[in-house]
């Protein structure tokens, strides 16, 4: 790894801690540069794809195929006036975009692009991701409260309801993976997937994907910024660079979520038939693919109502994730008792059958959207 | 200068005292709850400090249980606060005096 070599080289000249600090800063810089470039590419891709889904061209003025559109957007946003509402809580209003922007960046520190391209292979990797991801919501809170705008406040309440509801199935669906792998490190999780986990645990994959999509506020779960109900939600009072930070943070979070889906369930940088290009490329390709599926869902499905939104988490995703844990646990126990290697083929078919059956039958057992509508 | 167990214990004591002071001196029930969380956090620091310096993991096990209890306490505490607010339009702990003699 290049950073490691740089560290060894610098440590020859400087005291050890100085070398650590410098190498850490270099790593962070590389990560931020990569992060921002990825976000720009993805924004362009999304606008182009959504355009096609809606039978229009999408951006096509700035540069060939509108490829310079994100740069034009950036210039536009940077030259806007920075407006702070008169009655806003100034400090909270100022700090909110920063708090919303940083966590997705921190998540990228443990994304295993390639065995030697991971900034820090923490041994609590996935737990770190979940923990850091839960900080991002504080930014939305601060923005919603600090703007002293009733629509922002409603949006902040929705953020609270959404976080409390969707964090639960998100974490529980990861447990299925951790049970099989027996380690929290992201590198171990990728290395264990000779068969990608979405084949072995379709139910866990489904729950994680949907909960992650809700967690990063992608449509149809983007109730916090439902334009038709509460204008733009918590960032209604933001303009200029602060709005850009929210925008980047949102896309960064979506990108981090698709990277997590890739690492946890799609085998990370692994490719079924050997690795012809470096696994880095495969990882990015899978990540962008997952992101495109998110666009697809976004441009196909209408937005949920608030009661349907929380009801979906508690009535569908939550029991599904519990059943997934039970299933995986039982199968692991059986495999251990019988001395089989982990997850032989019959289990795979069993899992798919159970998942298919539950997805078909479970929604018949309850009704969404007959309750009261609050918030 | 090295950081020993004493430093962590004193930090824990300082945080605990701040939490105790706040929990006793504040009238807003939500703030009282926040101060109780600070106290539980302070205890956790002491537990993890002991566990580290004695090389026993039992302290961390205790910290895990303290966190569980803290989560349960926060959920029930906030439910009580919201229920009180609904019936009295106030979360002032001084005004909730039905059980006072």
């Amino acid at each position, binding site marked *: 790894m290049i950073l490691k070599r740089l560290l060894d080289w610098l440590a020859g000249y400087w005291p050890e801690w100085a070398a*650590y600090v410098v190498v850490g800063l270099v790593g962070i810089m590389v990560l931020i540069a990569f992060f921002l470039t990825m976000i720009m590419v993805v924004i362009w891709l999304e606008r182009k794809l959504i355009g096609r889904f809606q039978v229009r061209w999408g951006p096509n003025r700035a540069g060939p195929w509108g490829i310079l559109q994100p740069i034009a957007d950036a210039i536009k946003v940077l030259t806007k006036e920075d407006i702070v509402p008169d009655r806003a809580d100034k400090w*909270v209003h100022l700090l909110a975009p920063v708090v919303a922007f940083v966590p997705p960046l921190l998540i990228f520190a443990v994304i295993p692009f390639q065995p030697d391209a991971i900034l820090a292979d923490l*041994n*609590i990797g996935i737990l770190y991701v979940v*923990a850091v991801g*839960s*900080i991002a*919501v*504080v930014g939305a*809170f601060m923005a919603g*409260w600090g703007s002293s705008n009733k629509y922002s406040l409603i949006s*902040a*309440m929705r953020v*609270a309801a959404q*976080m*409390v509801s969707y964090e639960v199935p998100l974490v529980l669906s990861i447990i299925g993976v951790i049970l099989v792998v027996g380690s929290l490190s992201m590198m171990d999780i990728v290395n264990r997937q000779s068969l990608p986990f979405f084949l072995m645990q379709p139910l866990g994959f489904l729950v994680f994907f949907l909960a992650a999509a809700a967690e990063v506020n992608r449509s149809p779960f983007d109730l916090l910024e439902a334009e038709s109900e509460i204008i733009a939600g918590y960032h209604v009072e933001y303009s200029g660079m602060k709005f850009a930070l929210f925008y980047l943070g949102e896309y960064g979070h979506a990108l981090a979520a698709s990277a997590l889906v890739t690492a946890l369930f799609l085998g990370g940088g692994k490719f079924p038939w050997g690795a012809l290009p470096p696994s880095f490329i495969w990882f990015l390709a899978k990540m962008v693919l997952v992101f495109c599926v998110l666009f697809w869902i976004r441009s196909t499905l209408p937005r949920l109502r608030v009661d349907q939104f929380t009801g979906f988490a508690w009535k569908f995703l939550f029991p599904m994730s519990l059943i997934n844990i039970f299933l995986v646990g039982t199968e692991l126990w059986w495999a251990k008792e019988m001395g089989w290697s982990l997850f032989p083929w019959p289990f795979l078919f069993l899992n798919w059958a159970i998942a298919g059956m539950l997805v078909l039958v479970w929604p018949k057992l309850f009704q969404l959207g007959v309750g009261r509508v609050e918030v | 200068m090295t*950081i020993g167990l004493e430093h*962590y214990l004193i*930090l824990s*004591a*300082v*945080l605990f*005292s701040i*939490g*105790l002071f*706040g929990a*006793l*001196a*504040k*009238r807003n029930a*939500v*703030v009282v*709850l*926040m101060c109780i969380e*600070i106290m539980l*956090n302070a205890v*956790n*620091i002491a537990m*993890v400090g002991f*566990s580290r*310096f004695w090389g026993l*993991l*039992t302290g*961390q*096990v205790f910290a*895990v249980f303290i*966190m*569980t*209890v803290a*989560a349960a306490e*926060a*959920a029930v505490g*906030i*439910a*009580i606060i*919201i*229920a009180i*607010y*609904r019936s009295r339009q106030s979360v*002032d702990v001084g005004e909730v005096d039905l059980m006072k003699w």
Partner: protein
Amino acid sequence: MGTVITFWALAVASVVAALAVVFLRDVFRAALFLLASFIAVAGIFLLLSADFLAAIQVLIYVGAIGVLIVFAIMLTREVKRGNPWGRMRFLAAIAGALLLVTIVLAVVNTAGWPGGTPPPPQATTEPLAMRLFDLETGFVLPFEIASVLLLAAVIGAIVLVRER
């Protein structure tokens, strides 16, 4: 050297944030400082090489309890009335100061704290699980009781705030 600087930075940050929780007038800002204090304590856990606990600290305290508290602040709308002091604040201050002095004296006067360099840090997730779920000397029953407690808390919270 690095440990010393980090410890003091985190200690000062957590104490200042805790003081801000008590002394700020704005309840929402107090809650934000509470979150900052939680994160600083998570840093202290990392310094004590309790990596698993640090992540759990952020997940539970910031992600769950912090969110709940902010939610409660928004629901109760008590911000206009601020963060008033009770009548007993001088007694409370005396109680806090007495407790602090007692503990500090006790800590300083006790000889025989395990001093010097602690054992080298290592990953704690697996040893912690072994300690927690060991069938002979572990904490399986307390663990189950804790889960029952959580269930009871969830049901209790729902019953309390249910509107009839």
